[in-house]
């Protein structure tokens, strides 16, 4: 299983987010043609977070691996940087509001770790 294989990432420009399952001959393209600069990422057993920025926004992508396949579970943006918390059993992504006074949007993704 592999996703966001670092060798293939173009840090400035239009990177693709692709995901490969162990037996797949072709990757699944989860996001294409996004004009972003990658700032960092978090890789766990089943949750993958890509933090990036475009010209005007902070962007976060979350890819999850469930039941043998990948899916783009979150694509969110804000003017301010999101916070990513990785605990023993889940990844929490907190996306700041676009305007002051609005609540932070919290997204939780369980990690299905091998025993």
């Amino acid at each position, binding site marked *: 299983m592999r996703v966001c*294989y*670092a*060798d293939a*990432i*173009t*840090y*400035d*420009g239009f990177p693709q987010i692709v995901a490969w399952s162990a037996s797949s001959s072709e990757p699944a393209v989860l996001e294409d043609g996004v004009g972003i600069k*990658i*700032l*960092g*990422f*978090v*890789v*766990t*057993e089943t949750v993958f977070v890509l*933090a990036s920025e475009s010209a005007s926004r902070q962007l976060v992508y979350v890819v999850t691996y469930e039941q043998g396949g990948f899916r783009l579970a979150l694509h969110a943006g804000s003017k301010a*940087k999101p*916070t*990513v*918390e*990785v*605990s*023993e059993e889940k990844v929490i992504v907190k996306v700041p509001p676009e305007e002051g006074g609005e609540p932070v949007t919290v997204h939780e993704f369980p990690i299905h*770790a091998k025993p």
Partner: protein
Amino acid sequence: MQNREPLGGSGSRAGDWSGGDPEQAGAAPGEEVRMIVLVLLLLANMLMAQTASGELKPCEPILTTFYPGWDSKVPAHKQARVEIRNCGTADKVELQIVAWTAYAAEPSAVLKTGAGRIVWNRDPRFQGGLRLPTVQRDNADNRIVRVVMAGNVFIVETAGEGRSLVTVLLFERGGVWVPSQKDSDRRLPVELYDNTVTLTSWSQNGTQWKSTYSTGLK
């Protein structure tokens, strides 16, 4: 070879020594012996980091590579990077961590993985039989369970035989620094907030430690 030492930064703690739990870090005032032991352990950490690339050779093959800042104008093999290599076989994986600065001909850090134990080795540089604590890792980890990369900060957690090892690497001032390698029997929380990465750990007596590293990002 880079001159390395444990990084203080804003989050380095006295308990940030390599190869185990910082139990001694919570020493009460007056416990001089424990503090001396702690200082020696910190020294051991420093020595281990300094000798890491000198004594170990990168294994083959490279399993995966991470680049803290990709420059499309520079060939991949000349970029700053962290490689996860296999010193074992395809059937028995033994992970090794190798870190390179940009354009370097030699790696800045070559680190073993696996649970650590303190051994007191005689240091040949000192006469009189001085023994210093060093971390020995006999059974290398066989899988990567977590990776966090943000700016200058690279954290990888490897696992095997019931425990895991969290290795922190910092790309700063033209070198690679290894401020921390911690054994743990649980996954250690990591938080990316603004331009910092915070790693939380616990000593055996339950004391919580937070180490915060700047990513260097704007």
